[in-house]
């Protein structure tokens, strides 16, 4: 028998019992839609976590710290290494030389200094993000004006500032202090931030320009510095909140440390060491249970942390592992993401199970329909056998009919699940996302990727064929004689 004939006979039978075929197909539609929706919610949740975590920081970024020991879970004791690798220029160079799939390596730290403009305006909001000037371009920063820091700026106090910074200067005599003014998208600057006429300076002294200076002591030292560029506004933040909240100044880490040293000398010499005004110069010593951690080869821990930016999200776990094997502590947004996804794994597997049950019911319904169909068609099958229909053709007819139910149900089910998905997302947008622990404004609860459509269609067809297998074999085993006996 030709394949087209088997197909057309199967199709005739499918269309013959319209109500029953429709009900069976409906079962498959619901089963398919249930699986697709449940999986799409799982996918949506993962994506939501990803969005949320990447809003905290780039998923490709790994922060490296010195290893200072770990609790041994068996003994309950904190085990401290005899000596540990410090974060210094040797280590940074080692990372650059040895790590694979890495885009940028930079020591990093936070600095703080009051910023003075033209010796009459202050900006108190600017914390200073410290990095290796030569690595800034590789770290993914982009400028709206001027240029990024590069090799030329290593060891200097040249800086780049966030788009908001120029909006935060205020005149001490005429205006109230400003704290975190955010520019709207592409808002025009109040002055040209890169102009030669604008003079920037940093100081350690909180009262600078603001309160009377003790004239018995020498003048407070300020450090002049040059701005070389202004960063672009963060598009995601602009989209979500209407503004970008970055108010930082970006400076070469070594240039900053040198500047701080000079400012500290001035402070110590004339005003006593006022710790609370916070002049800090990199490098941290680590104490565990009152015991200082020793660094390898008597080296010093120059940097607080080192940032490693990986070229692809998929490599983050590998690079993290390599760093741990090298003797360091790491932390990345990926860790948080893994933790969150681990915590909701149970919820997602329950969703998947609900879908699977629905699909299983659909499969049983297909099998039931096909068995019923055989009982009804016992005589027909007998006639076909007697007049010479091959057993394989009879089996084929029933399998094709079951497959038609699967394909039609699967296709309609996928279409139906798009409608449900839209509905779910509409309902979830009113606070439903938070119920799942997702706090990301532009995430949706249900996401149906294209592969899920295809997979659902294949699954539905496969379930149709598998459910049809038993009835089809049963049909071939019917006794032709019994079937055609005159009644």
């Amino acid at each position, binding site marked *: 028998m*030709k394949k087209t004939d088997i197909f057309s006979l199967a199709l005739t039978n499918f269309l*013959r019992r319209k109500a029953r075929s429709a009900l069976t197909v409906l079962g498959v539609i619901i089963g398919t839609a249930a699986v697709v929706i449940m999986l799409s919610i799982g996918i949506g949740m993962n994506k939501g976590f990803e969005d949320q975590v990447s809003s905290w920081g780039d998923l490709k970024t790994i922060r490296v710290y010195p290893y200072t020991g770990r609790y041994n879970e068996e003994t309950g004791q904190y085990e401290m290494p005899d000596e540990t690798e410090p974060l210094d220029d040797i280590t940074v160079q080692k990372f650059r030389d040895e790590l694979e799939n890495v885009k940028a390596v930079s020591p990093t730290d936070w600095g703080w200094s009051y910023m003075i403009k033209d010796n009459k305006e202050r900006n108190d909001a600017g914390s200073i993000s410290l990095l290796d000037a030569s690595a800034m371009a590789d770290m993914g920063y982009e400028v709206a004006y001027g240029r990024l820091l590069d090799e030329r700026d290593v060891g200097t106090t040249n800086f780049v500032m966030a788009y908001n910074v120029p909006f935060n200067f205020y005149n001490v005599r005429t205006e109230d202090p400003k704290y975190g003014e955010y520019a709207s998208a592409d808002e025009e600057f109040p002055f040209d931030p890169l102009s030669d006429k604008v003079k920037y300076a940093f100081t350690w002294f909180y009262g600078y320009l603001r309160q009377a200076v003790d004239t018995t002591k020498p003048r407070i030292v300020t450090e002049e510095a040059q701005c070389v560029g202004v960063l672009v506004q963060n598009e995601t933040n602009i989209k979500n909140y209407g503004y970008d909240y970055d108010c930082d100044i970006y400076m070469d880490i070594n240039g900053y440390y040198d500047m701080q040293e000079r400012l500290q000398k001035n402070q110590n010499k004339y005003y006593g060491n006022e710790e609370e005004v916070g002049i800090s110069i990199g490098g941290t010593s680590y104490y565990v249970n009152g015991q200082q951690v020793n660094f390898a080869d008597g080296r010093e821990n120059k940097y607080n942390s080192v940032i490693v930016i990986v070229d692809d999200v998929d490599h983050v776990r590998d690079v993290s592992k390599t760093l741990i094997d090298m003797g360091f502590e790491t932390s990345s947004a990926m860790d948080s993401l893994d933790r969150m996804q681990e915590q909701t794994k149970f919820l997602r597997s329950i969703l998947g199970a609900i879908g699977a049950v629905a699909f299983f019911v659909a499969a049983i319904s297909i099998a039931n329909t096909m068995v019923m169909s055989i009982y009804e068609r016992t005589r*027909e099958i007998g*006639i*076909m056998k007697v*007049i*010479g229909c*091959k057993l394989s053709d009879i089996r084929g007819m029933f399998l094709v009919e079951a497959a038609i139910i699967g394909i039609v149900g699967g296709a309609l089910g996928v279409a139906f699940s798009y409608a449900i998905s839209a509905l779910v997302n509409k309902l979830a947008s009113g606070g439903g996302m938070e119920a799942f622990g997702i706090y990301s404004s532009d995430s949706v609860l249900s996401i149906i990727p294209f592969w899920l459509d295809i997979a659902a269609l294949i699954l539905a067809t496969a379930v149709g064929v598998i459910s049809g297998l038993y009835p089809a074999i049963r049909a071939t085993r019917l006794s032709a004689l019994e079937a055609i006996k*005159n009644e």
Partner: protein
Amino acid sequence: MAAGMAEKIAAQVQKEPIISIRGLTKVFTLGKEKVYALNGIDLDVQENEIICLLGTSGSGKSTLLNMMAGLEKPTKGSITIFGERIDKMSERKLAIFRQKNMGFVFQAYNLLPNLTAIDNVSLPLAFAGVKRRIRVKKAKKMLKLCGLGKRMRHKPTQMSGGQQQRVGIARAFVATPKIVFADEPTGNLDTHTTIEIMEMMVRMSRENHQTLIIVTHDTEIAAYADTIYHIIDGKICSVEDNREHQALPPEKPDERLDDDSVDENSEPELKMPDGEKESHPQEEEISQILQNSQIPNSLSTEEEYI
């Protein structure tokens, strides 16, 4: 004419039988009792022979036919058709064997209810993998030969019993099988239709040199056969050579079933016996029956059933 026919038949008798049954026994066990449905049947069927298995209900005639068709396995004995042991064949092989060599006409017609007459008739060809265009052509030709030129797109429920059985005959003969089995082919039909159907079957099998095996309890039906086997209690109790008294339909040597040139618009071309009546004594009886019952003397008569 009669002498020439006798020579032909005599020549065939010399040949190897196409169906050869030896010691065929079928035992059913009912509780502790053994029932012999068939008890040591020996039977040879020649090519182009029309035989009739005549017997009452429960005589075992239908069981014998079912075994010849490979639908039932014997308890003992052998059935050899075209040199092959039917009783030893797997179901898979039997299906193909039936597809190639056998046609069936049933008492209850056994048409597929959701297929049109054309699709029903072309079903055996579809099973054999014949292309749709060709098998529809053959089916149409067959239906016209059976006088159903205007009923081709009807479904079985839209046809009378006689029309349905004509579709059944068209289906049995369409693939020109060597052997056609007919199990009480007219059991559900009135006398007039019975005659139409029987003559149609006999003529078709004659024209195509096919072997026709009829199972019936009706002696009038048996009269169409060359050889009549009387079956009582699972045994052949007598064999009757019926060639002398046979109800023979006219020959139509110019019409061949495997001729593909079909004119779709042509009317059914079945001819009724008229010119050659004298040479067949039994036909006179039949035409008398026809006249007495005042039924129109035409096969293409069509009553409307909806």
